[in-house]
Each structure stands twice: as C-alpha cells, then as structure tokens.
C-alpha cells in the first residue's frame, strides 16, 4: 500500500509538472514519467498485458512522436505561462477542484454492485489469452474497425505532414 501511495504521489506530481512547466520538452518527459506510473498501476491491478502494452504503445511510441515534433519544431521558446485571459484562468483554477469534487462525490455515492463477482483471479485474468479471447470473439467488429481507424490515421498523418512539392 505504501508503494501505491508513492507511485500515486509521483504520478500527480508529474502531471502537475506537465501542465505548469514552461518548456515543452520537460513537459514531455514528465508525461512519460506519468505514463510509466500508470503502467505500474496497471501492474498492481493484475492487468499485466496492459502494463506491457501501455509501455510499448503509449510511453514508447506515442510519446516518441511528441518528442520528435518538439525536437523538429525546435520549440525551445518558453512561453509566458499565464499571459492574459484572466477570466478563463480564474475559471480554470476554480473549475478544476470543482471537477475533482464532483468526480469524487460520484465515486463515493455509487451503489455497490450487488451481483456476485463472476470470475476469480485465476491465472487467466489480465493475461494476453483472456483479452485475445474477448477481442477475437465478442468484440471482433470493434477490433477490425480499430484497425481501419489506424490505417486512416496513418494516411492522414502522412498527408498532413508532407511538404507540398509546388
């Protein structure tokens, strides 16, 4: 339990650094730290396959995209953090804690689920075989649709980032 508290502290601290640090590259690195913390949470929640996938896909591929863009656009210019828009800024700082409060209330007030918990934590929960069974049997259409989505996104990204030859 102590370990989970430490990881939660690191996750929240790095999330605050992502939002409040001026340099984009440092924000990227703190987001990577945050993603690794979330992957460790997955490990605690018996989601081993998702732990590995989070590290490979999210922290290992998506964030590399961000690192590339920050390096290529050479975004060293550190913006002034809270320039104008005082109303929006104030609303954001008031709305944030209100949002947390609303979410916490929703979490505490939810009813306990009354049905008996179906499966047990046998060796099957959270492994690749279990997810594979679900993905290829019950959720097959969604799986194929996701692959079409990825192809479309690849084409879109290449088209958007291409230099015009004119």
């Amino acid at each position: 339990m102590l370990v989970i508290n430490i990881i939660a502290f690191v996750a929240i601290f790095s999330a605050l650094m992502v939002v409040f640090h001026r340099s984009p590259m440092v924000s990227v690195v703190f987001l990577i730290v945050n993603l690794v913390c979330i992957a460790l949470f997955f490990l605690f929640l018996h989601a081993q396959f998702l732990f590995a996938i989070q590290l490979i896909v999210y922290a290992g591929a998506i964030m590399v995209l961000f690192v590339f863009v920050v390096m290529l656009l050479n975004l060293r210019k550190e913006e002034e953090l809270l320039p104008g828009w005082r109303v929006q800024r104030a609303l954001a700082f008031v709305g944030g804690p209100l949002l947390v409060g609303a979410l916490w209330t929703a979490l505490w007030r939810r009813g306990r689920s009354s049905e008996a918990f179906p499966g047990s934590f046998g060796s099957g929960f959270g492994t690749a075989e279990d997810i594979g069974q679900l993905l290829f049997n019950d959720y097959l259409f969604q799986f194929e649709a996701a692959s079409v989505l990825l192809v479309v996104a690849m084409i879109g990204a290449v088209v958007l980032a291409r230099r015009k030859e004119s």
Partner: protein
Amino acid sequence: MEPSILSLVIEALLKVAFVIGLVMGGVTYMTWVERRVAGIIQDRLGPNRVGFAGLLQPIADGLKFLFKEDILPPHVYKPFYILAPTLIFVPSLLGSTVIPFGDSIHLFGRDIPLQVADLNVGILFIFAMSAMGVYGIALAGWSSNNKFSLMGGLRSSAQLISYELAMGLSVVGVLMVAGSLRLNEVVESQSGFHWNAFTQPIGLLCFVVAAFAETNRAPFDLPECESELVAGYHTEYSSMKFAMFMMAEYANMITAAALMVTLYFGGWQVPGLSKAALSPLAVSLIQVGAFLFKTAFFLFLFVWVRWTLPRFRFDQLMDLGWKALFPLALLQIFATALFILWGWL
C-alpha cells in the same frame, strides 16, 4: 513446503547478482573481444600487452575513463544531459531479467527457476524496455544543444522505432508456435531439434537484422559513427558518461544475443541431453553452459558483422526497415499461420 520469505529474497538476490554480474562482466570483456576480433579480421594483433593476451585491457580502459576530466559544458540542459546515459543503461539491464538461462533446478527441496522474473508477458516486457531505451538517445541529442547531436538523436530514434516494428512482427511467428508470451514456454516449445531457426528462417533473418539495428550496431551505426555527424548524439559527453553510452550499447548487445538464442535457437536446451544418465544438477549446469556458449557465439557474430560490412546511409537504412524487413516479417507471420493451420508446425 512453503518457502520462507527469507529464502525467496535470498534466491532473488542471488539470481539478480548472477545476471547483473554476467551482463556487466560481459560488457567489460566484450570490449576486449571486439578489439581482438577486429584485429584478427584486419590481419593485425589487437591489444595484447596489458596482462596476458591483453586481458587486463578493459580494466585499464575503465581506469582511464574514471580518471578523465568530466566536462559539464555550460550550454547543455543539465537535468537531461546527466539523466540520459542512465536512461539508456537501465532498460537494457532490465531487459535481461526475464531471459531464462536454464531449466529449473531442484535445490534445497524446491524448484528454483533460473530466471530472475518469470513474467506472464515476458517478451512484451523486453520490447517495452527497448521502447524506453529510445528516450535516452533522444534526450541526449536534444539536451546537448548542438545541431549535430540533435540530428544524431533524431536519426537514431527514428531508426530504433522503425526496427522495433520489424523485430516485434518477426517474433509473432515464434509466439504463434509457442502459444504463450512467457519465455520459458517459448524455450520449451523448441525441445529436441525443433529450433525456431530451422522452422522459421525468414523470421530469424528479420530478427537478426532488426536486432543489429536496434542496438545501433554493425552496419546500422550511422547515428554514432565518427565520420558523419561528428560523434552523433554523444558528441558533448566525456569520461564516465561517455563510457556509460558504450556500456549501454554492449549491454543491449548481450540482451539481444540472449534473446536471439532464447527465441530461435532453443535457449538452454541441449538436444539429446536428458537421455544421458547424469544427475539433475549436472544437467542443469550443462544447460546453463550451453546457453552461455550460444550467446557467446551470437556476440561474436555481432562483432564479426561490424568489422566486415560498410555502414548504411540513413535513407538506405530506413528503406531497409520499412520496405524490406516489415513486409518480410508480415510474410513470415502469414506463412507460419498457414503452416499451423495445415498442421505442419
């Protein structure tokens, strides 16, 4: 009999010490092997003065690196500059923890698996660690505040993520045959002479080439070579931090060679061994020795290829990764699936 916590902790510590000792010792003596083999290939002697046949040369090199002045240039971004060598080195050490170096031995009344961590998603953990290793290079290039380092870091990161794809896909064939992501089961599915190297040669080729590229090694070392981008992403590094980049490269090589052995060459299996009437402990030791011997052969292969082939230009490198290895790996998956369907595998 339930093992006590203390014995579990001691067992884990001993295994970790063994693996880290092996990897670090390997890293140190790979420098010696590299220079001697380079000498043999180039028809000259390598270092042979320091100690018998030059065996103390790595120690002399280590001392040299320790005593060199550790320059911290004023124009670098210090937090990432100091963090980057660690970010490269730690994932490569972590990747070697899931590789089984022997069958489980029976000591003190229970079975001890010869693997530091028997993860359910073993192979994916290694890919996750190599994905994390990309950041060390990217951050080293960016934090050095230097156009050559930036380009070197960008090129190297692009190379690493492109070849990660080919490496992952070529392993899918092995996973289909083994039916599990656990590396122990991958090794056990290759009992007898059913080594995956014989049944999936295209996958082996893709994996070996991709492993060369992933470790920034051999003909794929453009991002760090001396004649192109000054020295690429480690231009601004000196002394011990530079040494850590070199050590991380060798540690990556050792993990990649061990992985090649585990996935394609039967791991610790020795065909025909169990027929001999030896005590189980001797069998286990022979299997560990076989694993180490096969890994050593692949490390020699890494060195051999480096000193034989000229290096690729960066666009040739990316073409090879995306236009040649990626379709080949897909072809391998397709062929393996057909063979499993027809019952041949």
